[in-house]
């Protein structure tokens, strides 16, 4: 009984008392400015995607989506994500296990290396693969000799996508696992569990929301990557176009409705990503909330 009303007090006190807040008109002004900014930069483009896509009615919208090239691009996008995300998931888990649970020389270098794709422009990500696997690249002649196509083909697209998305899961899990420490795992081991059992039964449940969060972001980027894939793909319609590339092609042909139709699919994926993200965050905060109750709010 006591703890619930102390929590109520804390919530009530958390509402800004008049001693430490700005006068009413300033608050109104700041809220107005913030909302205008968001409207101009976030809401307007978001709405524009759908209004442009439906500008000529549902019929045209639907036929743009079911066009064979559009469907091929959808398949390629899904295929790429289906390969890149699980691989990067495994990588993320392995890397964060090594980094968070052990001390070794070169750990911070490794962590910096994992952040690399964020520091690099997407087109440069594509460039390095072209330099390596391209016709005039280092491995080019060897690949030609063995009739293996990487650049301007699906393997190249998958590779480039894996490059730009591999940090997402790791970046979420590393700080999370570091904060959680090694006590739980050590306890499990002392009770006789094997390494795998410890991981599945102890570590995984602890990191599940962070993992979901990382996978969601990884997937969003994998499906939406443009720059790196654009450099590698060769833009061959029906074969090496992902959905973002297909959007570009349609747009450059002045087929605006078609371009926005495909874009609307990607936008829906983005919105679902945001919803899932909120869900994962909320669940995570729920898990943390009991620990974070502060005692200093005494009455």
């Amino acid at each position, binding site marked *: 009984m*006591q703890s619930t*009303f*102390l929590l*109520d*007090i804390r919530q*009530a*006190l958390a509402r800004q*008392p*008049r*001693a430490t807040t700005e006068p009413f008109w300033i608050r109104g002004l700041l809220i107005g400015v913030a909302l205008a900014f968001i409207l101009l930069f976030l809401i307007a483009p978001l709405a524009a995607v759908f209004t442009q896509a439906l500008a000529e009615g549902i019929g045209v919208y639907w036929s743009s989506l079911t066009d064979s090239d559009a469907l091929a691009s959808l398949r390629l996008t899904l295929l790429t994500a289906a390969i890149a995300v699980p691989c990067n998931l495994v990588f993320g888990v392995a890397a964060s296990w090594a980094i968070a649970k052990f001390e070794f020389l070169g750990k911070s270098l490794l962590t910096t290396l994992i952040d690399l794709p964020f520091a690099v422009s997407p087109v440069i990500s594509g460039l390095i693969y072209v330099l390596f696997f391209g016709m005039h690249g280092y491995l080019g002649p060897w690949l030609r000799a063995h009739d293996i196509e990487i650049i301007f083909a699906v393997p190249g697209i998958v590779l480039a996508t894996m490059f730009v998305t591999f940090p997402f899961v790791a970046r979420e899990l590393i700080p999370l696992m570091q904060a959680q420490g090694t006590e739980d795992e050590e306890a499990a081991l002392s009770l006789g569990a094997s390494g795998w059992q410890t991981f599945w039964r102890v570590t995984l449940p602890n990191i599940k929301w962070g993992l979901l969060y990382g996978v969601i972001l990884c997937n969003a980027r994998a499906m939406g990557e443009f720059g790196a894939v654009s450099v590698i793909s060769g833009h061959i319609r029906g074969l090496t176009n992902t959905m973002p590339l297909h959007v570009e092609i349609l747009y450059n042909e002045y087929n605006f409705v078609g371009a926005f139709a495909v874009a609307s699919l990607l936008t829906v994926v983005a919105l679902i990503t945001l919803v899932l993200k909120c869900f994962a965050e909320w669940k995570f905060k729920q898990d943390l909330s009991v620990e974070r109750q502060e005692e*200093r709010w*005494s*009455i």
Partner: protein
Amino acid sequence: MVDMSIEVQHISKHFGSFAALRDVSLTVATGELVALLGPSGSGKTTLLRIISGLEVADPDSGGILLHEEDVTDTHVRSRRVGFVFQHYALFRHMTVYKNVAFGLRVRPRKLRPSAQEIHDKVHGLLKLVQLDWLADHYPAQLSGGQRQRIALARALAIEPKVLLLDEPFGALDARTRQELRGWLRRLHGELNVTSVLVTHDQEEALEVADRVAIMSAGRIEQVGTPEEVFHNPANEFVMNFLGRVNIFHGRVEGDRAYLGPLEVEYKGEYQATAQAARGLVRPFDLDIQTEPNNEPGFKATVCHVNAAGPRVKVDLMAESGEPVHVELGHERYRDLGLTAGQEVFVIPREINVYVDDDLQ
């Protein structure tokens, strides 16, 4: 002498449906140090914050007077109160000097002292709290006790009419708490600023304050000097809260009280029908004897004796099953020659009997 009194008049405060303060009134005389003492949820911090202006009382309740001026609607920054927080609230990115000088520097130009005056004042205060040598340090480099003294110096810099301290030693270890308690007492003696101290530590309140206000569930149960509240508790709550008590449950019928193993005369209102009651006795108001005599008492077995300390603490189990705690002087203890398992007689010298009606 300039009036620097505080008057709280019929203040109530609700948070949603929860009543933190119910019609509280209190007067603090100029130069007095009053402690607000009570358990968590009693409303003491809320009352302190309302006096300071950091909280506002319910609109239809009473008012606050500082030095005889109605400040109920005055903003905290205009009340000239010095507030000391439990967790110091020092400005992390400013040196100790800048922290203490803050209140002087933010004054409007007309009232702002010159740089030299600020310098002299800050160093004077730092010397007063004996930390002048830390002027160029950052709060992160200081110990808890040092930080709290700086926080106090900072509050004093604005020459406040009243000083309000919210569990100032709550975040410190036991040793530091004791040192700073004595230090605060001496400082108050020197400066004589009207002060209100909130604490849940009764030892602190009884040691430092001129008067103590015991609070419970949003009301003031009793206000008085430390001796008054301890030896003449106004009601059961106060007696139970301060110091250790033995409680005997039972009933009162007519003018007799039957409390567990005890039967004593009930000096209160004659109870025609039996009423549930409790008897509260201080450990030092119980005497132990090896032989029964005519005085009212009960049999008990000695369980444990702790003779390490200024008095001897004896834990016994009464024949009727209640645990009893008695404190004796060393001489008396030696005279008795008590051993564990010994059967003795416990005689109450003074007992406060509270009937359920009394709580209304």
